[in-house]
């Protein structure tokens, strides 16, 4: 594992945040399977080290833009379980008063500009947030999360060109989980993803997305440099999603093997790896870790119960918020 400059408290928070994401997703998946959740949703499980490693290098003033697979980013950027589950269930107390749902969950208060149901749809938004920072002389940095599949959208190259020309404080974080829907990355991406960024004069790095410390260390460095006007940067994070493309994608052997899934889960799980390291380094004991895990599990379950019992928005809300005053 790579070394980071964080201290014990930081390590434990990173661990907890990863477990919180996993717990959130396990509960969301259950809600779907038990038909208690409206619509579909995309699980982040397996990719926790990416969101956490990155978001732990950011402050609340830094912004992120998220994707259709956005619960992990939302938790990592500081969101609460209750408001998140309420949103997934379309309840009034949700982050978006139930109007957004899983694919549009956003958390203004922690700088999460929102998930996006248009693949690639938030690349402009992230870059525009960085432009705003530069124009207003603010020193916040914006991280743009997107998948390997999203690299096929031309918008990425348009905004990278402008970010590079104008040295914008934006970090493009490509979560390469090997698939876009039911298609392998190599079938939809010619050449090299990092070389594409480099061709626009953007410094690009490939990093192991299952290693939360490696991700965090690199992000800390890049964020610090971006704050000084040395951006933009590009990161390709090699990772894996454990579930199907969405919760309903159950039979997936036609596009990827069970062995492959098992290999990632058993040998490259970001939580197991980091937990092992924490214990090995004496930062936490197995017992302490079990206590943390249990607490998080309880929190998540309580939040689910709360959300299930919460109110739907009143019908009169239907035509509110079309226009701001």
């Amino acid at each position, binding site marked *: 594992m790579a070394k980071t400059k964080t201290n014990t408290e930081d390590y434990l928070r990173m661990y907890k945040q990863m477990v919180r994401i996993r717990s959130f997703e396990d509960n969301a998946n259950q809600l779907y399977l038990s038909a208690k959740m*409206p*619509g*579909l949703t995309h699980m982040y499980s397996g990719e926790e080290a990416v969101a956490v490693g990155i978001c732990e290098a950011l402050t609340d003033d830094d912004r992120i833009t998220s994707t259709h697979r956005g619960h992990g980013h939302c938790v990592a950027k500081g969101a609460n379980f209750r408001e998140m589950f309420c949103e997934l269930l*379309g*309840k009034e107390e949700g982050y*978006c*008063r*139930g*109007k*957004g*749902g899983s*694919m*549009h969950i956003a958390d203004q208060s922690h700088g999460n500009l929102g998930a*996006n*149901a*248009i*693949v*690639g*749809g938030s690349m402009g938004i992230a870059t525009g947030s960085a432009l705003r920072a530069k124009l207003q002389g603010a020193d916040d940095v914006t991280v743009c999360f997107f998948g390997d*599949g*999203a690299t*096929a*959208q*031309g918008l990425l190259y348009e905004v990278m060109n402008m970010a590079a020309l104008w040295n914008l404080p934006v970090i493009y974080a490509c979560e390469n989980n090997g698939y*876009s*829907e*039911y*298609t392998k990355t190599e*079938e*939809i*991406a010619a050449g090299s993803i990092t070389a594409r960024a480099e061709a626009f004069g953007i410094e690009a790095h490939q990093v192991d997305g299952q290693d939360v410390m490696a991700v965090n260390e690199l992000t800390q460095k890049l964020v610090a440099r971006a704050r000084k006007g040395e951006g933009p940067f590009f990161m390709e994070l090699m990772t894996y999603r454990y579930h199907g493309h969405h919760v309903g994608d159950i039979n997936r052997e*036609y*596009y990827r093997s069970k062995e492959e899934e098992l290999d990632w889960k058993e040998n490259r799980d970001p939580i197991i790896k980091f937990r092992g390291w924490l214990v090995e380094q004496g930062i936490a004991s197995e017992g302490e870790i079990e206590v943390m895990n249990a607490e998080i599990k309880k929190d998540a379950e309580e939040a689910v119960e709360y959300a299930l019992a919460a109110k*739907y*928005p009143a*019908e009169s*809300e*239907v*035509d509110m918020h*079309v226009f701001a005053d």
Partner: protein
Amino acid sequence: MRNITLSQAVNEAFAEEMRRDETVFIIGEDVAEAGTPFKILSGLVEEFGTERVIDTPIAEPGFMGLAVGAAMTGSRPVVDLMFGDFIFLIMDQLCNQAAKTHYMSGGKMNAPLVVRTNMGATRRSAAQHSQSLHALVAHIPGLKVAMPSSAYEAKGLLKSAIRDNNPVVIFEDKLMYNDKAEVPEEEYLIPFGEANVKRSGRDITLIGTSSMVQVCEAAAEILAKEGIEAEVIDPRTIVPLDEETLIASAKKTSRVIVVDEGHQSFGVTSEIASRINEKAFYHLDAPAMRMGAMDVPVPFSPALEDITVPTPEGVAEQARKLMSGEMIHAA
């Protein structure tokens, strides 16, 4: 006659047309092995191979552009656009390029392609996966727009679309993929620009597009019990629009409601109502009324989403108002 789902009907239409005409191919995201997320195209890649059922990267403007170029030079591509909401991404290639090729070249070139996509809310898919955007393309000269209301229509209209020498956009309602209807074994086409009178009646005309045809039929059932005889018409294509049939019905019944799932304002209902008002005005006892979806982005929450679209009860209620002359006081 056998009953098959809309999804099967679309699949059959492709299989038949691809067998008939080698130049037809399908291009889009996860259309091959996956057969689309809705599994509509399952089996086609096995028969026609990955050269004719082409999986693309997630690049809607790009593969739409490829379709235009292929169409201009001798192929008949069908673009599979996974959600109708993504039409915003292909507007330039569709509206600035495909729609205008024939005209701008003085009739010397054309772009015979189909964009097959969907529409329809109430699936809890939220604001970017629930829109019904057919009014936008209908506004652009050079594009034809088909809106099947059942498996039967879906097959016949898609086959006609593939054979048409112009760019055609076909919107399927994603909530209807499992709806079954009688579909003949033998081959048939449904010509564009011929409305279908689904139910005849003398008191009021209900014009519906896509799934709103079923809403109108259900409303007609409700009304029938109250002694109101509604005529239900499905235009099947909104470009070209079978004005004649619609106007004849309006003249006969003297009352009209147009129901469509696109946003009401600046939408399809406005166009159809305007044409009827213009051409049947002196036969009407009340203004041709519009019922579109609410002018709001589609909300995620089930508690809100369902009230954004027209329902049989809502249509029946509006019909009663028109029948009772209540409009006179409103207008």
